[in-house]
């Protein structure tokens, strides 16, 4: 084992199985290497003093269950450096073990946690990589918004048009940026991979322009307009989470030279129309889920 002190902080999330796996990884790691100090993210946030010394004198390993990166945030807001970062969805792909969706871990989920813990301990011996994570500013847009339970949905108040596939176009002269709406990113959940179109490609309205893969599903971006791709947001390949965090701004997908926007627009909705359309969709889904839950409990 390493000759320096180590501590581990998992995200400990409770509303997704990935958080439970992150917690189990940390517990399995300290079970195998009891010298590694365990940091409880919740107690840390409440100002537990004993952690101050540990964090200052140890190299920090964070285990994040999802793109929100709560464990990472708790360390970064204290201006501390992360020595190693473990991201559960990435490990799940690497080891071809599914985390499962239920909050009670399946055998495969437990096996995934054990495998990650074993690999983590091995990698700590050889790792000297330090990770720097970049955060970007967020563009200000005026939004319509609606909260359903704890989920929050936004639609810009002006300057955008939308198709029924929950994709947007922001026209500016003969060019336009395209992307996915807040509703679509919320439905997809944490986006992990993005497949961008090729520059120079010609597309028709309602063609698939690219795809993105989340922990739940693979979805397509259906172009609201026809034209030619003139640029793509390469940053999404490195930071696909921008699609979740800022779908109308830094999460733009591609830029299109518009072929016939005035004609395409006839089949699109403006901002307030799309907001109403989205609200109805959310309501229907909410009712459907409620019905399913009641049926399950009967």
């Amino acid at each position, binding site marked *: 084992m390493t000759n320096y002190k180590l501590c581990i902080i998992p995200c400990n999330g409770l509303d997704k199985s990935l958080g439970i796996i992150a917690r189990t990884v*940390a517990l399995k790691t300290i079970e195998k290497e009891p010298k590694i100090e*365990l940091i*409880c993210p*919740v*107690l840390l*946030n409440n100002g537990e003093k004993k952690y101050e010394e540990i964090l200052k004198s140890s190299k920090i390993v964070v285990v994040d269950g999802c793109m929100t990166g709560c464990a990472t945030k708790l360390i970064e807001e204290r201006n501390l450096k992360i020595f190693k970062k473990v991201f559960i969805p990435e490990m799940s792909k690497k080891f071809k073990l599914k985390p499962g969706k239920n909050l009670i871990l399946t055998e495969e989920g437990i096996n995934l946690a054990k495998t990650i813990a074993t690999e983590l301990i091995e990698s700590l011996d050889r790792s000297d990589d330090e990770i720097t994570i970049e955060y970007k500013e967020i563009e200000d847009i005026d939004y319509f918004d609606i*909260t359903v339970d704890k989920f929050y949905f936004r639609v810009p108040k002006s300057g955008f048009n939308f198709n029924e596939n929950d994709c947007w176009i922001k026209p500016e002269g003969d060019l336009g940026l395209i992307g996915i709406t807040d509703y679509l990113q919320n439905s997809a959940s944490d986006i992990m991979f993005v497949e961008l179109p090729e520059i120079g490609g010609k597309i028709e309205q309602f063609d698939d322009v690219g795809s993105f893969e989340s922990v739940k599903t693979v979805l397509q971006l259906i172009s609201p307009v026809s034209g030619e791709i003139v640029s793509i947001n390469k940053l999404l390949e490195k930071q696909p989470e921008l699609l979740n965090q800022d779908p109308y701004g830094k999460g733009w997908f591609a830029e299109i030279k518009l072929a016939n926007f005035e004609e395409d627009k006839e089949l699109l909705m403006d901002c307030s129309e799309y907001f109403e359309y989205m609200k109805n969709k959310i309501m229907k889904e909410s009712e459907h889920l409620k019905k399913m839950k009641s049926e399950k*409990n009967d």
Partner: protein
Amino acid sequence: MQKKWIDYLKKREWNSQMKKKVGIIACSGENLLGGTLSRAAARIVVEKLRPNNTIILCQPLFAAGGLERHGGQDERDFAKNHPTITIEGCKEECSKIAVERYSGPVAATIRVDEIMEAHFELNPESREDLGENGMKLAEIVAEEIAKKVDEYFRRE
């Protein structure tokens, strides 16, 4: 009918359909049995006992906060605008501290360590695996939470 009036009616209908729910926030304690029990009990309430009246709030997300999308602001706003019951693994009462710090007063607090003392015959196996007795204890905690949820709706 005037458009303004139609918009108002739509909005009223929309608001009336958004039934109020109670937020359940568990201690998530990393290093203690009470943390595991509080997590399990919160799950039982939200998934089995009161699925239509409760919603789980993720405490690490709540604590990490952040105004950017998918940060903890959504959780904090929910607890600000809805009643929230905290489940505490020990006397530190981390959930209550966090809710009061970021959102406001809590509707009720359940202390798992006190319930454990009252049911000392049910000894959970470990913090990773509660075992049969531990799950029975989690069910008891969950029933206590459900009672608090019902009390809230009776008062409303």
